[in-house]
């Protein structure tokens, strides 16, 4: 009887496999048309001279790696540098504040009240339209905007400070917006990680009389290391994609003097001017950078999984 049933199940298993494939069709059809073919064609385009000169299209002519050479000789390094600086200026406070809050929220001895309300508020900016948020900051920090009004009213400033004409004020505000949008998200992710730490470990540390700093540096940080790495690398991948905020904030110019121009803003310029060769080369470079970062994510996650399995 049992054997017979197994046989039926097995037979059915074979015939059911086709449903598995069938249900995958929509996803893969759409993926191939709207992502994979465009990705391949982007790579292909990067080897051709193909741009608009006035109303006339030059190319496409095969030129090998010339696009890569000219884009590396252009301002690419400057824009990479801008992106990196603005990412770091936002990310360092982001991870610092998020770690602090995550530890506080999950500290049972501290017993903070109303953590639910705090979490709700600090996560909110993450869902806001970046373009609108950036427009809002632009109006707030414009020469005759509310921030200048308030500062002058308090007597802190004699005349309006022109935030958008200063390189570091502009970079700082862009980084500040990124910080505001992401520190709540990071806090919640890190908090979940800290809650997952074995309670006995923390208790043992408390019984041994470890100071909060010792518990933090010797118990909490090593235990959440994999998720910390995950957060850092995914944020880096997000940082490479930085676009909406600086684009709206500086009207696409990366002003002042292109010191806040990011990589994707540069790509956007090539897309608008229809310079497919240079745009393609830039896309491929961005693809390679994010692929390397993704491999690092997977490596860190797998290591964690091996460890967990080995430990238990």
């Amino acid at each position, binding site marked *: 009887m049992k054997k017979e049933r197994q046989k039926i199940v097995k037979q059915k298993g074979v015939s*059911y496999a086709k449903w598995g494939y069938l249900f995958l069709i929509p996803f893969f059809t759409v993926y191939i048309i709207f992502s994979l073919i465009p990705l391949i064609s982007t790579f292909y*385009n990067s080897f051709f001279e193909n741009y608009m000169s006035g109303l006339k299209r030059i190319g496409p002519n095969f030129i090998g790696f010339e696009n890569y050479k000219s884009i590396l000789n252009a301002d690419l390094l400057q824009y990479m540098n801008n992106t990196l600086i603005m990412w770091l200026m936002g990310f360092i406070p982001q991870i610092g504040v998020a770690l602090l*809050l995550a530890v506080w929220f999950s500290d049972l001895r501290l017993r903070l009240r109303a953590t639910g309300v705090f979490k709700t508020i600090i996560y909110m900016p993450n869902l806001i339209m970046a*373009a609108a948020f950036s427009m809002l900051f632009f109006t707030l920090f414009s020469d005759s905007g509310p921030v200048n009004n308030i500062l002058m009213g308090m007597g802190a400033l004699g005349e309006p400070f022109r935030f958008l004409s200063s390189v570091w004020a502009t970079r700082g505000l862009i980084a500040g917006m990124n910080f505001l949008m992401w520190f709540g998200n990071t806090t919640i992710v890190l908090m979940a990680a800290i809650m997952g730490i074995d309670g006995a470990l923390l208790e043992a540390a408390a019984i041994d009389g470890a100071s909060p700093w010792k518990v933090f540096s010797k118990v909490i940080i090593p235990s959440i290391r994999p998720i910390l790495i995950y957060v850092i690398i995914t944020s880096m991948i997000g940082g490479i994609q930085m676009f909406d905020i600086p684009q709206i904030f500086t009207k696409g110019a990366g002003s002042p003097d292109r010191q806040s121009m990011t990589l994707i803003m540069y790509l956007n310029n090539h897309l608008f001017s229809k310079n497919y060769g240079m745009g393609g080369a830039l896309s*491929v470079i961005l693809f390679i950078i994010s692929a390397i970062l993704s491999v690092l994510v997977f490596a860190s996650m797998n290591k964690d999984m091996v460890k967990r399995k080995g430990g238990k």
Partner: protein
Amino acid sequence: MKEKRDSSRLLLNMRRSISYIVLVFLVFLCLFPFFVLLVNATRSHPDIQKGFSFIPGGSFLTNMVHVLNNENLPVLSGIVNSLFIAGMSGILATYFSGLTAYAIHAYEFRLKRAVYLFIMLIMMVPVQVSTLGFVDLMGKMKLMDNFIPLIIPSIASPVVFFFMKQYLDSTLPLDIVEAARIDGSGEFSTFNKIVVPIMKPAIAVQAIFTFVGSWNNYFVPSLIIKSNSKKTLPILIAQLRSADFLKFDMGQVYMLVAIAIFPVVLVYICLSKFIIRGVTAGSVKG
């Protein structure tokens, strides 16, 4: 001994005070921009020019009427377009990601592991790196200035798939599927009538995230949409920014930003518990 305990209690109280001060400061940072936005959206242009005030004005409706009837900015159709695109994306992304996740979860087939690995790999590829080819292809397919390139691609959403797969792993025992088969349910209707209802909580959370992501999306729509009547809200905001903004009625500027931001905030306030739980659902299990 007592002294020691007192001092440690003092220390704890001090730490608690410091954490409250830091938290209140961060809450202030998060809320202040929105507070200014709310106040200024209710004030008229001359009032705003006079300087900042903490008291709301009485021009909320005037600003609203003006911005909705602005001849240069099709705001009303922008709202409708954004709602339509984001709504459709939310529905398609969750339904088809659920279907894809179910295919991997419930069936045994040879390429199963390879397919799963492939989707996990493409999850990390930024959209921007294939945008050049995407815009080029849409041009060749005569889909420029059309909503299709903004809606259909959400059928293949690796991140939503990942969440759905995690959810199925923890909630759908295969016995249920087996039982449905014995009762003579077809495979596709098993998915629609049994699996989708079970997945409702995950679908709701992911639909919200996809909706918000699409509502906020600026990069791709700005490259695809050309005509005024098809523009979405982020494009209108960018347009407002690149117009000579000092000539604008500032009351309208704040009102448009408020229209783009506050619907999402309202939904968030109603469903925040739900949403915050969704943030950690996928990332931590890893």
